[in-house]
């Protein structure tokens, strides 16, 4: 009886966010789906056995049927045991199929022997990687379990001994090389010392390429090696984290974009067209810290996993008034005005006529935030630098004006992006206007009070942490993809525990976004907590509960959580990114009091979120 009540309550809760137009209501109804799930999922032994079976069959063509089937409410119809059946790891390997997985390499290879080319590649990969100390030495690594050896951020790893065990033990290596096999970047150790390793990587890439194929990944017992080719650059990740290939590839893409943001795609292709064996390190000299910083952020900040921006919770009236301050400080060719506090977004204002239909992508904002975070030089004065926003336009530079508004604390940062490289003085003038307006409105001290929130504010006792990402509403308003998440509090206060929770989230994310068998809902009982991930057409939600939570409690909790988010969304998100026009109209703009137009006329959008 009680349970029924819960279900009803949930169904209502769902409807708030899920209008009846939802194409697949059954799958989205949390209660229905959950009731079909078993409680104890993912026992490791079962998982391994099943993996073995799956790998042997590896029907590359049967993938198609998998893909078609995935749309139909998979999780609602499949019995619990099948939901947890792991996806084949090889479906991504369009060309190669080195299904070497968890001590099953040999059998996998035996089965694949009919395809001699794949066999060769697998063997080559194994042999070379082991020779270079990249692969497995048959020892079990504690790193597999958790990221407890995650290296401290912003330490220089350039001088590391690349033959040492400690170098091999790093959880995630990232290498960037040119098509000629020249080293460009290595996360740990110097590129010179790794040139032969990178040569082998390039040999692998070109070997597969010569067969009109593309190498995508190599699996060994403890490591996943993922390749990404972008133009003349080859990016390689060697990871002992349990992240999915897709996730690792997405991270490599961030590295690529960060390089593009400094050099532009056009100039990189031009350079390598001109000179195949150019040493790109010449141009990236001094930027290693930016790439190091990016990789540390990728590991520790879920924004990258979710491809969404985390903005600082702020009373909407304050956010609006800040936006209006930015809106009024304009100059020709100023395209974006961005205000950042404590490395989180406060507001973005964009020029109206130049970019009516586009917006900044979360990736571009992540790159900008990383650039600001990775360079202490910004605190010295005002910065004027060319910067490319790869997703906005990979071939062109913006000119970024960066200045902190609250020296010497340097927590509130203003970023103004212009298309005119000569516009420094004009843009610096805008900063002065913004500064004055903020002084007049006492904005800085108000911003200083803003902070991330505690999960206890939601008022659900078993809920420990969550990440909520609402989706864009197409055809209505091109909203910046954002997510909200409370502080990680006890028991996730230590770095190790934070990483462990993030790893759990990454695991949930990989299941939800699996290419072969995407799920809409996972209820995962882990050793020390219980997680529930749920994706609908309106949002993506990851929750973490105390281990003893019951399914019924989790359902109630999520209902409450969704209501709470709904109630707080004006504070948690940038709801209405304001635009402005470059043609100032003094009679209008100078009169605008505080927040007038936006607060009230916002309701249509509000109901759609």
């Amino acid at each position, binding site marked *: 009886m009680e349970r029924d009540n819960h279900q009803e309550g949930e169904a209502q809760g769902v409807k708030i966010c899920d209008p009846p137009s939802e194409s697949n209501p059954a799958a989205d109804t949390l209660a229905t789906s959950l009731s079909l799930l078993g409680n104890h999922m993912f026992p490791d032994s079962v998982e391994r056995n099943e993996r073995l079976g799956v790998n042997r069959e590896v029907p590359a063509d049967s993938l198609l049927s998998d893909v078609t089937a995935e749309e139909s409410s998979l999780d609602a119809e499949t019995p619990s045991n099948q939901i947890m059946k792991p996806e084949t790891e090889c479906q991504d390997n369009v060309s190669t199929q080195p299904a070497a997985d968890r001590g099953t390499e040999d059998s996998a290879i035996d089965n694949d022997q009919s395809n001699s080319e794949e066999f060769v590649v697998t063997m080559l990969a194994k042999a070379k990687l082991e020779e270079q100390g990249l692969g497995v030495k048959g020892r079990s690594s504690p790193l597999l379990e958790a990221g407890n050896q995650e290296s401290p951020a912003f330490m220089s790893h350039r001088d590391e001994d690349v033959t040492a065990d400690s170098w091999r033990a790093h959880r995630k290596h990232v290498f960037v090389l040119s098509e000629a096999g020249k080293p460009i970047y290595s996360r740990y150790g110097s590129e010179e010392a790794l040139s032969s390793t990178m040569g082998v990587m390039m040999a692998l890439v070109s070997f597969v390429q010569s067969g009109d194929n593309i190498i995508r990944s190599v699996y060994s017992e403890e490591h996943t090696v993922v390749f990404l080719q972008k133009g003349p650059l080859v990016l390689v990740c060697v990871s002992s984290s349990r992240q999915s290939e897709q996730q690792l590839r997405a991270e490599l893409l961030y590295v690529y974009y960060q390089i593009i943001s400094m050099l532009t795609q056009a100039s990189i292709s031009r350079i390598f067209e001109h000179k195949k064996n150019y040493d790109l390190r010449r141009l990236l000299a001094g930027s290693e810290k930016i790439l190091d910083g990016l990789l540390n952020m990728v590991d520790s900040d879920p924004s990258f996993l979710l491809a969404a921006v985390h903005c600082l919770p702020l009373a909407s009236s304050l956010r609006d008034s800040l936006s209006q301050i930015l809106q009024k400080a304009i100059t020709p060719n100023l395209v974006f005005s961005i205000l950042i506090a404590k490395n989180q977004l406060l507001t973005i204002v964009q020029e109206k006529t130049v970019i009516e239909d586009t917006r900044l992508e979360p990736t571009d904002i992540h790159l900008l935030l990383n650039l600001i975070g990775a360079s202490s030089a910004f605190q*010295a004065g005002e910065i004027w630098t060319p910067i490319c926003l790869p997703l906005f336009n990979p071939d062109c530079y913006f000119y970024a004006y960066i200045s902190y508004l609250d020296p010497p604390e340097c927590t509130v940062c203003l970023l103004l992006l212009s298309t005119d490289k000569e516009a420094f003085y004009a843009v610096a003038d805008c900063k002065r206007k913004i500064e004055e307006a903020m002084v007049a409105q006492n904005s800085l001290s108000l911003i200083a009070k803003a902070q991330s929130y505690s999960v206890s504010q939601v008022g659900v006792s078993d809920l420990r942490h969550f990440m909520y990402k609402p989706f864009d509403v197409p055809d209505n308003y091109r909203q910046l993809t954002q997510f909200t998440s409370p502080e990680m509090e006890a028991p996730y206060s230590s770095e190790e525990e934070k990483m462990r929770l993030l790893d759990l989230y990454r695991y949930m994310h990989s299941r939800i976004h699996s290419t072969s068998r995407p799920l809409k809902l996972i209820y995962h009982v882990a050793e020390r907590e219980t997680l529930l991930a749920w994706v609908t057409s309106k949002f993506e939600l990851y929750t973490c509960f105390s281990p003893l939570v019951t399914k019924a409690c989790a359902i109630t909790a999520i209902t409450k959580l969704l209501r709470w988010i709904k109630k707080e969304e004006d504070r948690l998100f940038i709801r209405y990114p304001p635009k402005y026009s470059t043609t100032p109209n003094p009679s209008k703009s100078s009169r605008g009091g505080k927040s007038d137009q936006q607060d009230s006329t916002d309701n249509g959008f509000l109901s759609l979120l």
Partner: protein
Amino acid sequence: MGESLPRVPRGSQHPSNTLSRPVQTLRVKMVLLGSSGVGKSSLALRFGKDQFKSSSPTVGCAYLTQVVHLNDVTLRFEIWDTAGQEKYHSVTPLYYRGAHAALLVYDISKKETFIRAQVWLKELERHYVPGSTVIWLVGNKGDLTEDRQVSAQEAQSLANEKGLSFTETSALSGDQVTELLQALAHRVYECIGAQQGGLSEWREPSLVTLHHKDTSNPLASCCKVGP
């Protein structure tokens, strides 16, 4: 910037605290050039705040200002601290174009940075009008005497040959840094400030808005900002 700034009647700017004396403030555009890691940003930080902290490589270009008082004039140095990294070289001309002073910085413990400074000199010579820019050769990291690879004589003779001034500094210890800025200020004022139109006068910009607050006259400015 001068053009885009709303003009204010002369009399209104004098109440400013820094300008209690009727002393002219002239703008001096100064650029720091040199290889990556020679200490340009550290020098700039010494100029501005007399501090030292090891910094990350500069991204693009950092802009700082520093006021130097001479006997009969105040010079407001607008310091462009450029990034030494090669990837920014295509944009560096932006910063040294029209500069009144250029510091060519090298690291006395790294020969190649001295050679690089000479390349920068050639680059500058292609762009500047003789007499319009004061070029100063600066051997930084003077504290690293054990590792010295560029002798003071060698640098001095280059300076003599090219008609540059030369100083060895240490941004780490602060040695010779303030002296350098003072000497530079005198030289710039002597060489350029005396010329007609050599240095433009600087006007306190914040007074513009203070002024507007009273009158709130939209006609006074094309880009009025409501507080």
